[in-house]
């Protein structure tokens, strides 16, 4: 692309984003969609038009996996590399595509047509193996489909002309409850919230009273907040903070001049094995947006964001259409539902391949167009969030629940689930079972029940809540999903007895190493050291010494890391060591220490360069008495 054409693209995109540097990531992403990568000329132009230093733009571009400052192929293929994709044979499929297209993994083909690589879990575990082509998701890959895709790429068929069936993503809802089965019409929850306000509260409603509540504190917003508190709703992102308290803290936070309150929907679900937010957004986006609007009403916010993970780019146009429709229905915009001063609108920002942005303060940094590094806390987002304004960040599922609470009341909701965990939980079931997909249960359901319902047999282990969660062995299957026992963001990954739990843990460790933001020393270096140790075991050079090292690293990551990613990075390893020790013992060739260095493995680069991989090119064979 010529420099002039690039400049034209950049101008168009930047102007659409109001020349706002806080939209830098969105600008980079859209420039890339037009140019296939972000060429230096585009950065020149951004620098001039946004008035920000080049270091800042390159710093942001370099942080996100899906932004390329080196030319990539016209077709950028990324295979999902979660453990479930591996179990479904993604490696062989990737090899097949590489062979078909005569391209080496991770490199760009000589003609610049295509690049093939891997990426973390794409959220398609119930219909894997999955891949992204130019950030559009394709599920259910097979050898046949891979051959077809190779043919399409070779013939330079534009992505828009590929068979639509490829891009069909199933919802696979197997068990629905109050959210997925919601009898809900757009606007109902807002009207119910409005109706809950005392009539004098409504009559005296004006801009101030809508935002701040009546002096007596019993206006519409206050009544809505009370319902949320009464419901006992806790955040569905995994940590389980009480939603009512978070909202109240934000509502009570002082507003500086020119500031406003902000509602953020965290749709950056990146935990390997979870995909329930994908289904909620595809099946009931109105419920989610309505929940955000209820939140805005309750806390007095005027601005809303959905931070949509890059892997769900394919949902963007649909979601924007739903938002446009809501604006037409006066469910967004000015004086929502006829309430004077009830002004709120929602913008969608799309992520670009950084798991750490699911952490709320990193997400806010990313929303501000920066590198997604978790902030120092305190202060917390409820007082100093997006552009230093009071901000609530809640999970997609939390907002969906909030809408239903606004509609049906807090008591109704509190009556579902268990004492400490009110309501339902949507679980993303994948791995070794007959019916992977989405299951919504009232809290308190046992692991065993879920296994039974999804048709899992011969189960060895379940990884609940993804790699940062807990690995549950057979003797623990009567434990329950709930904040009083096993809290979860939703992932439920099943491994039958044929699976090697060491390789499961190793896959997760590679994931954390790749996704560490690199800000703090213990996580940046520690996850790399941990990965090297796991690889050492994989290559058969492990010893008890290495276990001790893993234990020490875990201690350090837990105590010294900056955020939750580092705190939990060792969990899968420690759980599997404790519960599936034989998987590790099998790899311990030595009882004493063995160095990681392996002479034969070091020769692999030489073998590749010479194109020779026969027995004679291996050192071990030589020792074996080659003549």
């Amino acid at each position, binding site marked *: 692309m010529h420099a002039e054409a690039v400049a034209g693209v950049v101008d168009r995109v930047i102007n659409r984003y109001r020349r706002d540097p806080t939209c830098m990531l969105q600008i980079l992403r859209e420039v890339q969609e037009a140019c296939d990568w972000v060429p230096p000329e585009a950065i020149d132009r951004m620098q001039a038009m946004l008035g920000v*230093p080049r270091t800042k733009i390159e710093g942001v*571009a370099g942080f996100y996996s899906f932004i390329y400052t080196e030319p990539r192929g016209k077709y950028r293929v990324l295979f999902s590399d979660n453990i479930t994709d591996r179990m479904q044979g993604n490696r062989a499929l990737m090899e097949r595509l590489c062979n078909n297209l005569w391209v080496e993994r991770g490199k760009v083909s000589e003609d610049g047509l295509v690049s093939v690589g891997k990426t973390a879990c794409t959220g398609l575990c119930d219909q894997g193996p999955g891949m992204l082509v130019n950030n559009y998701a394709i599920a259910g890959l097979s050898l046949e489909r891979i051959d077809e895709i190779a043919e399409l790429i070779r013939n330079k068929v534009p992505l828009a002309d590929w068979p639509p069936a490829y891009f069909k993503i199933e919802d696979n809802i197997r068990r629905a409850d109050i959210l997925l089965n919601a009898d809900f019409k757009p606007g109902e929850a807002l009207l119910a919230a409005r109706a809950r306000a005392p009539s004098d509260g409504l009559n005296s409603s004006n801009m101030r009273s809508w935002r701040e509540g009546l002096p007596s504190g019993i206006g519409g917003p206050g009544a809505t907040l009370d319902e949320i508190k009464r419901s006992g709703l806790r955040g569905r992102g995994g940590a389980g903070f009480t939603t009512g308290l978070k909202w109240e803290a934000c509502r009570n936070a002082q507003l500086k001049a020119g500031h406003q309150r902000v509602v953020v929907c965290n749709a950056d679900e990146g935990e390997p094995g979870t995909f329930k937010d994908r289904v909620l957004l595809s099946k009931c986006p109105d419920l989610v947006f309505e929940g955000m609007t209820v939140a805005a009403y309750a806390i007095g916010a005027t601005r809303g964001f959905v931070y949509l993970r890059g892997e769900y780019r394919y949902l963007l146009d649909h979601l924007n259409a739903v938002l446009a429709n809501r604006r037409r229905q006066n469910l967004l915009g000015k004086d929502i539902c006829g309430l004077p001063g009830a002004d709120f609108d929602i913008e969608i920002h799309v992520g670009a391949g950084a798991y750490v942005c699911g952490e709320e303060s990193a997400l806010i940094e990313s929303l501000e167009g920066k590198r997604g590094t978790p902030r120092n806390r305190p202060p917390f987002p409820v007082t100093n969030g997006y552009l230093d304004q009071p901000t609530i960040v809640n999970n997609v599922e939390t907002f969906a629940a909030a809408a239903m609470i606004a509609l049906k009341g807090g008591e109704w909701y509190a009556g579902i689930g268990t004492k400490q965990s009110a309501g339902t939980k949507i679980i993303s079931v994948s791995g070794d079972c007959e019916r992977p997909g989405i299951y919504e249960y009232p809290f308190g359901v046992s692991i065993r029940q879920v296994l039974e319902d999804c048709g899992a047999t011969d189960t060895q282990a379940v990884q609940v809540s993804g790699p940062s969660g807990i690995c549950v062995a057979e003797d623990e299957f009567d434990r329950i999903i709930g904040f009083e026992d096993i809290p979860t963001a939703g992932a439920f990954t099943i491994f039958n007895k044929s699976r090697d739990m060491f390789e499961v843990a190793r896959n997760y460790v590679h994931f954390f190493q790749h996704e*560490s933001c*690199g800000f703090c020393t213990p996580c940046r270096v520690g996850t790399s050291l941990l990965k090297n140790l796991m690889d050492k075991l994989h290559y058969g050079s492990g010893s008890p010494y290495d276990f001790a090292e893993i234990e020490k690293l875990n201690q350090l990551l837990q105590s010294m890391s900056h955020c939750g990613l580092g705190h939990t990075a060792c969990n899968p390893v420690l759980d599997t060591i404790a519960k599936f020790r034989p998987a590790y013992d099998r790899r311990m060739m030595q009882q004493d220490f063995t160095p*990681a260095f392996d002479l034969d493995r070091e020769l692999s680069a030489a073998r590749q360069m010479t194109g020779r991989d026969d027995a004679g090119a291996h050192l071990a064979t030589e020792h074996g008495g080659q003549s």
Partner: protein
Amino acid sequence: MSHTFTLDGKVVPFVDGQTIIQAASAAGVFIPHLCYHPEFKPHGSCKLCTVKVNGRHTASCTMRAAPGMVVESETEEINAERRALTQMLFVEGNHFCPSCEKSGNCQLQATAYHLGMMSAHYDHFFPNRPVDASHPEVLLDFNRCILCSLCVRASRDVDGKNVFGLSGRGIKTHLIVNAKSGQLADTDFTLADKAAQVCPVGVILKKRQGFAVPIGERKYDKAPISETAETTEGH
């Protein structure tokens, strides 16, 4: 208003808004650190200054002091963790102290001595980080970068130039300079910049100066880092 907390049993006074490390250093107590510098906004990334506050680990450079806090710093447990972090910084980059012209003036080296680090312990990563010698007065040897971002902050906040920034992610995080070519010579960086003075290791080096002061007679050769004033001019 003045309050106090205890640090390893010693009563330390502080004023509102002070962080633990600020109050400690005002009271003459040394807490190891690398990315912290009293003249700049705390960053909290190296984690060397981690202490235990009421039993919980936290970075003392970002944590505000509060009345009655019980802070532990010089304990065997915490120093062992700090030592491990220092070792991590050593294996992540390429640090060849004996031949490094920053030797004796280097905070990383001095901190390693302070913590009794006897070996790198972990396997070295040996990253490939080419040197930038383009600038007439200054050499950038990225091999020693510990990503403390002090130069980033100094250039941005004091010099108003934004010469430096961080790019990449995770173990691939790296220092970049503000030029399309990626070369320091193509920026407006000068030796007079504050950013030229703050590097705690040997990344930003003044040319033709290397061994003007012989090794053995340098800052931390004369007194350990725990007893030296809080500045990094050394060279």
